[in-house]
């Protein structure tokens, strides 16, 4: 069964079309990445699915609910990490999680959640003394304490240093092993690649490509063959690298030449991503 179903979703702000008809489905237990540059419409999409914003068109189903109308029962089953939120400065992490745990019918154990987000040693200090990354982890803990089926993470690691990012990745991976469905937005390609089972690349309110990270590179860009001839760099792009390479090397052998710096590259996901999001407007 799919946890989220989105069909031709549209949203405009005044004259500004933020979502121009996007569709995707997320299976239960799947980690789905919504990848795109700033302003692509990631937060708009996620907040429509969370029930914060109203859509202008299309169909949306989240855990069988229409988030626009869904009330308490729906909220008992989702966990939300907003793109920006400050927890209460004067509570401790333990108190913060206990407060939120009290809102849910079957919360997780607060100590367990503190362990999960790596704040066990900070459990009794005031939140205002925590670092930005620690506050963000507490926020993740708040999203998990109700033991939700589905977790929304809107740019969970933006602004983190590399070590904090790795730690957060570990936590998000542990969500998968808990069997949660996760919708994650990010503008970091490597993050989507590391964490998501499937990725949709969003650009100016449209999904430009969608699939498993490994599949995104397949066939969508030509291979590159590079070498130097008489000191000059030559780059050939081809969708038949085997044949082109065979001809090149045959010629070179016949002429008794060496193809200096010969190299065959498959485009990386990064190349694909950049080519997609940087394309000129049609």
């Amino acid at each position, binding site marked *: 069964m799919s946890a989220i179903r989105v069909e031709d979703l549209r949203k405009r702000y005044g004259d500004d079309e933020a979502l121009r008809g996007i569709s995707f489905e997320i299976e239960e237990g799947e980690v789905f990445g919504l990848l795109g540059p700033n302003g692509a419409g990631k937060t708009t999409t996620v907040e429509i699915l969370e029930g914060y914003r109203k859509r202008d068109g299309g169909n949306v189903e989240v855990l069988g609910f229409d988030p626009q109308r869904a009330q*308490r029962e729906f909220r008992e089953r989702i966990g939300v990490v907003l793109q920006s939120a*400050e927890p209460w400065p004067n509570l401790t992490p333990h108190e913060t999680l206990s407060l939120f745990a009290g809102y849910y019918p079957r919360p997780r154990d607060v100590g367990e959640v503190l362990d999960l987000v790596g704040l066990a040693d900070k459990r009794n200090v005031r939140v205002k003394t925590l670092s930005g990354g620690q506050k963000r982890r507490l926020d993740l803990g*708040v999203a998990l304490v109700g033991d939700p089926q589905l977790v929304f993470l809107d740019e969970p690691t933006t602004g983190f240093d590399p070590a904090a990012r790795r730690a957060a990745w570990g936590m998000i991976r542990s969500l998968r092993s808990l069997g949660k469905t996760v919708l994650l937005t990010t503008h970091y390609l490597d993050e989507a690649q590391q964490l998501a089972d499937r990725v949709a690349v969003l650009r100016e309110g449209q999904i430009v490509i969608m699939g498993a990270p490994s599949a995104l590179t397949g066939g969508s860009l030509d291979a590159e063959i590079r070498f130097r001839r008489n000191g000059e760099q030559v780059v050939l792009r081809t969708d038949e690298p085997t044949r082109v390479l065979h001809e090149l090397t045959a010629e070179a052998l016949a002429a008794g030449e060496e193809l200096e710096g010969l190299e065959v590259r498959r485009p990386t996901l990064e190349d694909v991503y950049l080519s997609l999001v940087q394309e000129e407007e049609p």
Partner: protein
Amino acid sequence: MRIFLHQLRFEQLLFWRSREAAFFIFGFPLLLFVLLGSVYNGKIDGYPASSVLLVGMIGYGAANTAFAGTAIILVNRREYGILKRIRSTPLPAWVYLACTLVSSLLVFTLETVLLFAVGRIFFSAQLPGHVASLAVAVLIGTTVFAAIGLAVTALIRSAEGSSAVVNFILLPMAFLSGSFGPTRRYPTFLRAIGDVLPLKYFIEVVKGIYLGGHALWSRPGALGVMAAWTAGGIVVARLRFGWEPRER
């Protein structure tokens, strides 16, 4: 009910934990009472000046706790994204808002008790006779000012501006309504403004109960004005109150 008590417990914890706000909201009327009480002497309208001032400070306390407290706390929580966060949880909105009201009620009740204690100890003021009437008046006062606080929350745009806006309303209102002393000698137009403010009528009702020994219901006009302000506050809040930060 369980979720209500849970939320209320944390509202109280949050209130007393933020010391500056707790001092400003809770401690300030007590301090002001001690200071002004030492300055005023003799009788006002045939009552001991300190007792009249005590009534004024109960009025100021109601507006300070329920109006200023509610507005400042809610604007801050809204702008920091805490209200938005809470909206994603199963906690019903009405439980949340009811808890902020009841939390103010607890703080203001304690405030009232302490004001009487201070009055008794420092200025040998009488203790109130009609405790039940007074308790109902405290509940009514909290409700009126919490409703206005909710409306003002909906109209304030930023956390930085909130305490300025709130004090800009609170202090003139308290002055014009007679919190800091009788308004009899004020110019006519200032008294006219005071005549439409809910605080004036709250003070009148408390004064009637405490000093006049009247029943709460002996001033239906005053109760009517307060009811109208409550209704107005709720209407504005319903139209304009939002859970998401205004500034993006």
